[in-house]
């Protein structure tokens, strides 16, 4: 069981293809929070995002044999998740209704209670809020890349494969996005 933690995603999926369900469970462990954070950006609703993430893992389970080594496992899983999220949003007519707040108007991120935190933590949380708002105000093509690169920590090549765009476009969009963020956050980051 300790060894399974050391395996790469690709090795895990091949073990799972041979019937090892513990490999599948490890994939779920590795990706469930990452995917939730990413999909939350599409759905803006935590429960809904969790639903999509669960559906993604169901698809991974049922379609394990369709995975081929031509793509990275992360790219495959994110593609499934993003497609499910976009389909769900388009069915609900919310494809362009992005907002940082949840359905009830509350920010759904786990911001600590400011009354019980130190001044430094309050500033950090405030900065987190501002950064999230600024990312949310970016054009979708920029926001998506910032999320994939800085939040999900994907490589340029992985992002390019996932979004089906050239690596150069990924880099230029990311640079543009960061310049836009720099302008929006100039008061907070000096």
């Amino acid at each position, binding site marked *: 069981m300790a060894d399974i933690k050391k395996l790469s995603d690709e090795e895990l999926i091949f073990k799972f293809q041979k019937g090892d369900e513990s490999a599948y469970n490890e994939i779920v462990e590795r990706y469930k*929070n990452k995917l939730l954070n990413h999909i939350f950006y599409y759905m803006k609703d935590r429960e809904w995002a969790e639903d999509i993430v669960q559906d993604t893992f169901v698809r991974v389970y049922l379609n394990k044999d369709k995975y081929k080594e031509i793509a990275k496992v992360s790219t495959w899983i994110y593609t499934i998740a993003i497609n499910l999220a976009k389909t769900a949003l388009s069915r609900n007519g919310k494809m362009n209704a992005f907002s940082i707040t949840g359905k009830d108007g509350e920010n759904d991120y786990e911001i600590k209670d400011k009354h019980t935190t130190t001044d430094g933590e309050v500033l950090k949380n405030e900065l987190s809020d501002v950064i999230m708002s600024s990312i949310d105000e970016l054009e979708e093509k920029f926001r998506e890349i910032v999320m994939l690169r800085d939040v999900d920590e994907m490589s340029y090549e992985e992002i390019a494969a996932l979004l089906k765009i050239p690596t150069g476009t990924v880099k230029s969009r990311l640079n543009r996005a960061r310049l836009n963020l720099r302008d929006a956050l100039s008061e907070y980051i000096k």
Partner: protein
Amino acid sequence: MAKCGKIEEMIINGDLEIDLAVETNDTVSVHLAECSDCRMFVESLRKISSEIKNIDRIKVSAGFDHALKIKLEAAKPESSSQEIKTVPFFTRMVYYAAGVAAVMIGFMYVSSLGVFDNKKGNDMITAPVTFTVASNTDKTKTVTTDSLENLRENVANDEELRMKVNTGE
């Protein structure tokens, strides 16, 4: 906007990747050593990237794994057959034996009702049946009877008769 703008322009044009160590580029390195505006600009971009990495993340709820398990069970196409496969061999044999015994008991019960009793069954013919009986004298006689008893009597009366039975329906 940095006052100098040289590095910013390189980044916009895609000539420079801020994620990489820009100092590895000799031209950039020399410029950064001389230009505080561009140095601050590069630092601010890096800080944004690192702050984004540090933003609070959400985690799945406590019931996530359980809900996923339920969805998986519902979605598995062969879940029922897999359950049967997991039943121990001995238990499976008991199931099979019980099935065979049930079939045999059923057969014996139906048999006891006389469904398979030939003699009794033939006597139970009630619908009119046409028997065609041919003799060696090449004359064909047609007899209509409602039971085998009558037919047997006809045959007994003429031993040379060869019988063809045509039930008609």
